[in-house]
């Protein structure tokens, strides 16, 4: 490792926070432009057109880009075995955001499933 732990931790935080903000923004945007039927190709084109006209889409993509750049930066200063497992934290942060910001109903069963996925994703990198 060539960088201090605080730098690596800040970059990993950047991956998780930017990624979560991106997912939450895209989710909210797609819900608002995705009303109505989606059965034909014409519906799909109309949905794509509405998506490209929504400011939230560009904000979400910008956040995702920020997460990707943080990932590249983190990988250049810290070992993969530290960076990749830590990104599994974004499942928890996203579900918290979905529950409290997007006001989705997240049952106890769904929380348990999400925590298992988080732990599983963490273990996958070993």
């Amino acid at each position, binding site marked *: 490792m060539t960088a201090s732990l605080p730098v690596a931790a800040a970059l990993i935080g950047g991956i998780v926070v930017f990624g979560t903000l991106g*997912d939450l923004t895209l*989710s909210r945007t797609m819900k608002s432009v995705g009303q109505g039927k989606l059965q034909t190709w014409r519906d799909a084109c109309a949905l794509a057109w509405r998506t490209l006209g929504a400011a939230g889409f560009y904000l979400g993509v910008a956040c995702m880009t920020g997460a990707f750049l943080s990932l590249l930066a983190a990988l250049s200063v810290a070992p993969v075995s530290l960076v990749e497992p830590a990104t599994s934290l974004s*499942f928890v942060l*996203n579900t918290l955001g979905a529950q409290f910001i997007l006001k989705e109903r997240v049952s106890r069963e769904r929380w348990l*499933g999400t925590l298992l*996925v*988080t732990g*599983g994703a*963490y273990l996958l990198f070993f």
Partner: protein
Amino acid sequence: MKLHPLVTVSVIVNSMGNILLTLAMKRLAPALEAHLAARDAAALLLTLATDATFLSGLALLIAFFLLFLTLLSKLDLSYVLPVTSLGYIVTALLGALLLGEQVSALRWLGIGAIAVGVYLVTRSAEAERAAAPAEAGL
């Protein structure tokens, strides 16, 4: 337990994209490193832009992003995100089969945990759908 058909398609598209990109980057690594050392950005981009494996991997990952957005337009983020993590399992298995990667005992444990987690999340979505059948279909 029934997975949404679009979820299944996105998981497969995502994993195939990851595998193809890994194959391409591993094969191209020596050439890319040489271009990087020579600070030749044009040659680097040309190497990537003329590689069929790299381009198909990239196309599949873009397709996955579009599918992911479509899923989010109809379904909850707290459902879509854990369920698409099935891609981790498919990628790990394909990596073992196609790229000869090792699957350690800890990794098998992780695969099992993800499978059970996705099962629970899917069951919670089914319970919700049963409670509110008026939900618009995809």
